[in-house]
């Protein structure tokens, strides 16, 4: 996935992205960090073709070499699975089964294939047998994992996560982290949870005020306290107690 000089201005005039360029190689896990309002969520929406690209000609975002264009969107959205920040936005069906089945159905699969994918995805996130439950009866951690199942059911090649651990309790956080660790997909994780970044990502990109201010190996960047503090971040605890040998 490649992003070159991506710019975006919201209708109210806010310049959310002011020329962002970076790339994610296949199989890589990259952390996207930065203060609130840095443009992280806006960037992620772009990667799924959910915001108008009018400001960018030629197309700034390419996925597997495909530029984001109206006739490519179905293909791009199938390749790029996006996990939203608020689980309630993502779980829009009356039952867990329906929700996980939504993507596969949009892909035009047969009923038996859909059922198979739903069963596989729910098993992958450890929620086998939750098919008939209603989303509003689930706990926060369960909701998040159903969302993930819904994304995995589309069999994407790239997983994009917007604040996956926000509003989860420590157990939910740990379970999700282990789950993400086991999923062998290319990942881009936008988060304030720096310990998650240390554990899952080999490389980080720091975004601030719509620009990429730093990019490099996780441990190197996150141990750079002046850099982290300058951009509304912090040096994570787990890095304070390790000694490079």
């Amino acid at each position, binding site marked *: 996935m490649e992003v070159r000089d991506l710019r975006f201005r919201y209708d109210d005039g806010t310049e959310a992205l002011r020329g962002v360029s970076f790339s994610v190689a296949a199989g890589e896990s990259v952390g996207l960090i930065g203060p609130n309002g840095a443009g992280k969520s806006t960037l992620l929406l772009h990667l799924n073709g959910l915001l108008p690209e009018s400001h960018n000609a030629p197309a700034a975002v390419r996925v597997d070499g495909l530029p984001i264009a109206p006739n490519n969107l179905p293909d791009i959205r199938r390749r790029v699975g996006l996990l*939203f920040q608020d689980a*309630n*936005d993502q779980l829009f069906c*009356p039952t867990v089964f329906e929700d996980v089945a939504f993507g596969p159905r*949009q892909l035009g699969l047969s009923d038996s294939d859909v059922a198979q994918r739903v069963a596989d995805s729910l098993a992958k996130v450890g929620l086998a047998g939750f098919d*008939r439950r209603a989303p*509003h009866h689930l706990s926060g951690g369960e909701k998040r994992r159903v969302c993930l199942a819904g994304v995995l059911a*589309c069999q994407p090649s790239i997983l994009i996560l917007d604040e996956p651990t926000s509003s989860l309790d420590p157990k939910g956080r740990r379970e999700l982290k282990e789950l993400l660790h086991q999923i062998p997909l290319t990942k881009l994780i936008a988060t304030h949870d720096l310990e998650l970044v240390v554990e899952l990502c080999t490389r980080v990109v720091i975004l601030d005020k719509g620009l990429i201010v730093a990019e490099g190996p996780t441990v190197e960047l996150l141990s750079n306290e002046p850099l982290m503090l300058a951009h509304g971040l912090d040096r994570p605890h787990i890095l304070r107690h390790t000694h490079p040998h």
Partner: protein
Amino acid sequence: MQADFLDRHSRLDSPVHRLPAGAKLAAALALVVAAVALPRSQAIWLAALAGPLLAAAAISRVPWGFLARRMLLLEPFVIGVAVLALFAPGGGWAFAFLVARASVCLFAMLLLANTTPFGDLLRVLGRLHVPALLVTTLALMYRYLFVLVDEAQRMKRARTSRTFRPGRSRTWRTSATVIGQLFIRASERAERIYAAMCARGWR
């Protein structure tokens, strides 16, 4: 948050719950049509409709107290309409008939909602070739009603925690603000939901 105030008992297990959703929907609709079509002179047949309904309610094990409370909650609307009949000649009888008829219909719907998960009903509608757009709208409405109620409740709580001097005019004004905010939040959420649907291939 009681996110199940509409159909708290729809997932119980009883012979009535196990009936196919389509059959229940058809029966409930037939019952409502029959009750509505019944001429006033044949009012005694209402009892014949109510009988099986009450029997079904008993078998379904949905608590009577719950059904009674729900009926009480909805009855004012029925009475509000029926009260107009009192002004016509022979109004008392017409009033009683209207209320009885509407109550049978209400009870049928209440029982249907509390013995059949909403998702099953939607699937039946889909099978009956009800337009997909309508079914999707109903599904989204059902799903987000609870989120909206939850959100309203959180906002109300947040407001209450900072209300120190209750006064009626001020309360009205803050209520208006809360309702306005709720509209804005709902519309923003609608946009995010639409994005989430697109992200999984909605066209």
